[in-house]
């Protein structure tokens, strides 16, 4: 379970919060989609969750433990797939997986079994011996996903995970997210690809300019806005030129 309570982040001395009093609860066994346009504050929220940033105000708790109080304890439970190219790309894929497994104290047998399964699943077994800086963008993303799963995290956090993946890998990833959630883990991911959110998520939240606009199951959101597709709703809610402060969906 992930709880954001009034979580706020102001970068440096900006006069505007990148994340503005976000209050959100993500239950166990749920695939949770975190939606928002570019610059909405998705990565910022995730950084507060993974302990890479300190909240300016408010708190984030994972399974009841506060990230600021017990950071190492919380981080141990999280498998994190960062966005973009954050990666120790001078290692080979194999070395990278071993590194992450060492950090999370995964036994030799476990890491081998898991790595072999996921490498085969994403067709990465042959490339695993090469340096990551020789990979394509999608291959890097795959290694990142596998690394996040090598310690069977209770909480799986993915920042724009579909970017750069081919259709096959994207399909496998969605299956995995479903599988982990059904096994009781919490899967929290950010995206701006709406079809993914619509079909995959048990719940979604939409944020814009750091503020939570609306939250619910995809079904609920569609009903509230009178059977528009989620895409239309999203465009409407996140339209900066619209006069209303995004109250359309939230009754």
């Amino acid at each position, binding site marked *: 379970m992930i709880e954001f309570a009034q979580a706020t982040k102001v970068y440096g001395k900006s006069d505007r919060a990148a994340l503005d009093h976000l209050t959100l609860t993500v239950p166990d066994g749920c695939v949770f989609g975190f939606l928002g346009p570019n610059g909405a504050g998705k990565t910022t929220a995730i950084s507060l969750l993974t302990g890479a940033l300190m909240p300016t105000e408010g708190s984030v708790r994972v399974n009841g433990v506060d990230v600021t109080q017990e950071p*190492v304890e919380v981080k141990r439970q999280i498998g994190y797939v960062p966005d973009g190219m954050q990666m120790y790309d*001078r290692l080979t894929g194999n070395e990278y997986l071993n590194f992450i497994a060492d950090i999370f104290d995964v036994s030799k047998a476990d890491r081998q079994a898991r790595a072999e399964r996921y490498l085969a699943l994403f067709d990465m077994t042959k490339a695993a011996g090469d340096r990551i800086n020789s990979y394509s963008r999608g291959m890097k993303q795959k290694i990142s996903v596998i690394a996040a799963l090598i310690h069977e995290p209770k909480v799986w956090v993915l920042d724009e995970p579909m970017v750069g993946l081919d259709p096959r890998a994207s399909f496998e990833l969605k299956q995995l997210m479903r599988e982990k959630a059904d096994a009781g883990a919490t899967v929290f991911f950010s995206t701006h690809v709406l079809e993914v959110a619509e079909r995959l998520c048990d719940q979604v939240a939409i944020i814009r300019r750091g503020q939570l606009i609306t939250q619910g199951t995809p079904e609920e959101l569609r009903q509230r806005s009178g059977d528009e597709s989620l895409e239309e709703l999203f465009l409407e809610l996140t339209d900066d030129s619209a006069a209303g402060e995004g109250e359309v969906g939230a009754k």
Partner: protein
Amino acid sequence: MKNYLILQRVLLKNDLMGLNPFAQSGEEKASAGKLVMRRIGVIVLLLFAAGSVCFLEYELYQLFREMGMREMALGLAVLVGSVGTLLFGLFQGISSLFEGKDAPLLAVLPVTSRQVYAARVTSFIVSQIGTTVVLVLPAFVLYMLDEAAPVGFAIRAILTILLLPLIPVAIISLLATLLMRVSAFSRHRDTIVMILSFGFAIAYALFVTRLNSSADNQVNTIATMLTKDGLLNKMLGFYPPAQWAVSGLRGDWLQLLLLAAVSLAAPVLVVLLLGGSYLSAALGSGERSTRRHSRQQALSWGGSGQLMSLHVLEWRETLRTPAWLYNGLAGVIMFPLMMGVGFYSGFSAASTREGENLIKMVQSLAQTPEYAGYVIVIIAAIAAMGSMVNPLVATAYSREGQNYPFALSLPVKPLTRVWAKLLVGLEINAVCALMITVVMAVIFGVPALLAACGFLLAQLVGFAISAISLVMDLRHPRLSWANETAAIKTNFNQVISMVLWVILMGLCVVPVVLLWERGGTAVLLSVCGVIALACAVSVVLLWRVGRKASAQN
């Protein structure tokens, strides 16, 4: 031409970005008061660094003046400013010309390869002019104050400073480009480049000392060498441009003209000669060899603890990033190597009776029990040089760059991370200090016990410097660098770590000077005291990192 100028401006700005000491590091929320304090701190540090260079050169200048050899000060400054670049600049040249990540970006712009090369060489020259100014300016100013016609000298001095780095940079660019072409597309390119570069440097050093010792045999006595111009000529003899520069500074405009002509021609020639094929070579250096997947590779699934794993990661990152390998390790290895070559050639040049006697004298001094304290302190001081020239530790957090947030998301205690990085520094210090100690011990016949004590003392100095500069880098990492060379080379935190070294050495020198007459033991004890204090400071800093739950400021 217009394209070239635009490119030049952007590259210069990009290359020098990290040097702004007031740049905000990443994400910070310091209060105004704290910011002002930090700026004052930075300014004091910079003033201190400038002050110590000036002080050193002032003392040297006074010494030479009393001996009636003012020109020696000019000669030394010119030598340090130009030959220094030549000997130590090769790795920097390779990394600033070839290890930028922007080659693919530049390749698609409507500029020619020669323009890109010219722009790169120019920004290399500009950075070297910067270093030259720092090194030679105090000596030049002191000399000017004693001149009858200071204005003329000032003009000549400014011209000389601008001209001095040109030839070394041209030679280095030539060598670097040839090296990269020779080794292009080889699987073991980094190793080849590393070995060949060391080969060049050693060959050059040997060549120079051979030249000198053969000149010695002709003159055959140290006495003639000690006359005013004899010594100067000998010193500058193996690098003619230095001779032209000194003659030019002393008023010979013709020699200055010669220096200007050759200096300007050299880089232009190199650019014309090699510029055309530069971009393809630079692009090639970005390619990584992958293995052919004809057979299944055996993946290994070993395991180790967090500290070990992070430590290995640190080493792999360093060894597999050419810019860090060259700039981080090369200087540290080069230094004792050069010292070895220097002493060796000193030996072979000392075929004269005077030379032999001199070494015999030093050896007997080193073996006199009463001098044990002095010997230990001197060995420690020289062996600790490695911790100053090693920029790896002082940039360890900065070099994580965009990986920094990910590193923070790992469940690792801050202190474990610090130690994983600190150990790298300690290991490098140990290897460097060991080489230096062995060289000195062998040549001067220092008893093993004293050598070991000196070595240990140097390790403590290394620990203090590394720990303090690492914690400073942790507090204010400079994460947004343009390329890997910038991350390690133009990082202000590294400057701070050098200043730290100077301060610590300064603190040691004070009691040494005061107590010199009181005997070796007193000197040794006082130095140990200062070092113990520095170690205590670093332990406190480390302890404070350990107390924090999380790694952020």
